[in-house]
């Protein structure tokens, strides 16, 4: 248990409607995220995946069940600051996350609130901006940056608080392909070089495939949990959830449907080529 950073224990949550009782946004969700993992949460719109982000550091608390961050229950208000410092959340729209009028002052916002010493804030701000590759823009005004740059500033703002885990709620949804790639790379660096646990919510299949583990949500529930290879083994099921499948998996499935027994890695392009070569060798 010691290496579990985030734990959902049979969590149900529903948003408050005006009069009618709304169906739960998340229902009986149980899952565990271990330290250092790179997990993608996949699901189509309205599957409850954004609610998972908000539940993960106590922005909202479950109606029933519990969420634990390093063993601290998010319902316990005394641990509130500590929980938010441990698990940071980056949201979809970078415009609505940047508070200050200068990039470096925005990144400093978190540590300032935590009462960190000025010299240490300066060090963290510079370091965080360098990690996301935005150091040379530190004196710019945020509204003059591109979407991808703004999102990287938002990420730096979270890194500066030195969290152990960052939850990204569709951070690439509003970005152009270039911005999307930059943000993806920043997330991978955080995971590999700083050992930060990354939980990454998305509905882009290609992005999810870059994770070590994928959690699939559908209709407020967790439906699949496994490695990308395990998840995309059943192409028809994934499609029935309203999700895309990678082109490689789709091709493998078409071959299977035609009676060709294809085994091994069918997810990466190289893997699929190897698998196909084996079949061809066999004649």
């Amino acid at each position, binding site marked *: 248990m010691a290496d579990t950073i985030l734990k959902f224990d049979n969590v149900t949550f529903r948003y408050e409607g005006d009069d009618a009782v709304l169906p739960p946004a998340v229902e009986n969700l149980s899952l565990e995220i271990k330290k250092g993992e790179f997990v993608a949460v996949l699901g189509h719109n309205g599957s409850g995946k954004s609610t998972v982000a*908000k539940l993960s*550091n106590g*922005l909202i608390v479950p109606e029933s069940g519990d969420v634990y961050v390093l063993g601290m229950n998010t319902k316990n208000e005394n641990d509130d*600051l500590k929980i*938010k*410092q441990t698990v*940071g*959340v980056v*949201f979809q*729209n970078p*415009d*609505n*996350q*940047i*508070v*200050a*009028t*200068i990039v*470096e*002052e925005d990144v*400093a*916002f*978190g*540590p*300032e*609130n*935590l*009462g*960190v*010493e*000025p010299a240490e*804030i*300066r060090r963290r*701000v510079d370091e965080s901006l360098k990690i996301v590759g935005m150091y040379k823009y530190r004196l710019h*005004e*945020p*509204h003059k940056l591109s979407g991808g740059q703004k999102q990287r500033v*938002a990420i730096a*703002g*979270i890194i500066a*608080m030195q969290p152990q885990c960052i939850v990204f709620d569709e951070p690439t949804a509003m970005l152009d392909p270039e911005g999307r790639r930059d943000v993806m790379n920043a997330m991978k660096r955080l995971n590999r070089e700083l050992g930060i646990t990354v939980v990454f919510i998305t509905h882009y299949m290609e992005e999810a495939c870059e994770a070590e583990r994928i959690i699939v949500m559908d209709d407020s529930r967790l439906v699949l949990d496994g490695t990308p290879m395990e998840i995309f083994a059943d192409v028809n099921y994934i499609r029935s959830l309203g999700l895309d499948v990678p082109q490689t998996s789709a091709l493998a499935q078409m071959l299977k449907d035609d009676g060709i027994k294809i085994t091994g890695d069918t997810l990466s392009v190289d893997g699929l080529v190897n698998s196909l070569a084996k079949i061809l060798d066999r004649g």
Partner: protein
Amino acid sequence: MLKDITIGQYFPLNSVIHRLDPRVKLLYTFVFIIFIVVSNNFVSLAFCVACALAVTFISRVPLKTVIRGLRPILLVIIVTSLLQIIYVKTGVPLISFWKIKITSGGILEAVFITLRISFLIVMSTMLTYTTSPTSMTNGLDRAFSPLTKLGIDFNIVTMIMTIALRFIPTLIEEVDKIISAQKSRGADFESGNIFKRAKMLIPLFVPLLFNSSRRAYELAYAMTCRCYNGGKGKTTMNLLKYKTNDWIATFLTVVFVLGVILLNIKFGEYNAQFTFNAAV
């Protein structure tokens, strides 16, 4: 197009005045305003004007820009001057027609008032020209931080100012988008009488308000994630420190204050009759 606006009146240059501590600038502008009002004769007023011009010159903000800053109060200046001309009856009568008598005293009083108001405004616009909104907010925050001890939380006020400054360009961009969206559906923002145009603002402001409240929620979440708790126990990365220039400015302000007081005493209260006679 609207995206490139600069917020406030900040005129980004790198002069000595620009680099002064914002607290120093705030306080000394205030001192200047008090003493230009206190100055009671032409000599001390001239001294104030000279000081304001010196500051303008050192800041390297073009004089034209500074004068343009007076435009909004032009009407105030004209009206007050006219009132002085009509109602002040001291000095030598110059022209009289109908019920109005214009005297030399009235004209001198009008000139005096015009100079006083104009340079009061010039000096306060100098503050906004040479201080970026961010450093102004920072300065206000530090200047009013002692109030926290009295239970007045100024931190929230500066937070509101910062967020307002931060979101002005974002909202302008959004207005742009909404205008384009409504135009593409055939909305006409440019023609018609004033009532028709005012009515056209409804399809602009309703979506803007709606989106803003959604933004507000998301911003609140993002700020909570970054441990914002109303500024309790907050530290600041960029500490404001008084530098040599700030002490020089302090010294010069003291000289200015003493100058105005001495000139006021030496030349006494301005008297139109006396001044005119002396001039003749």
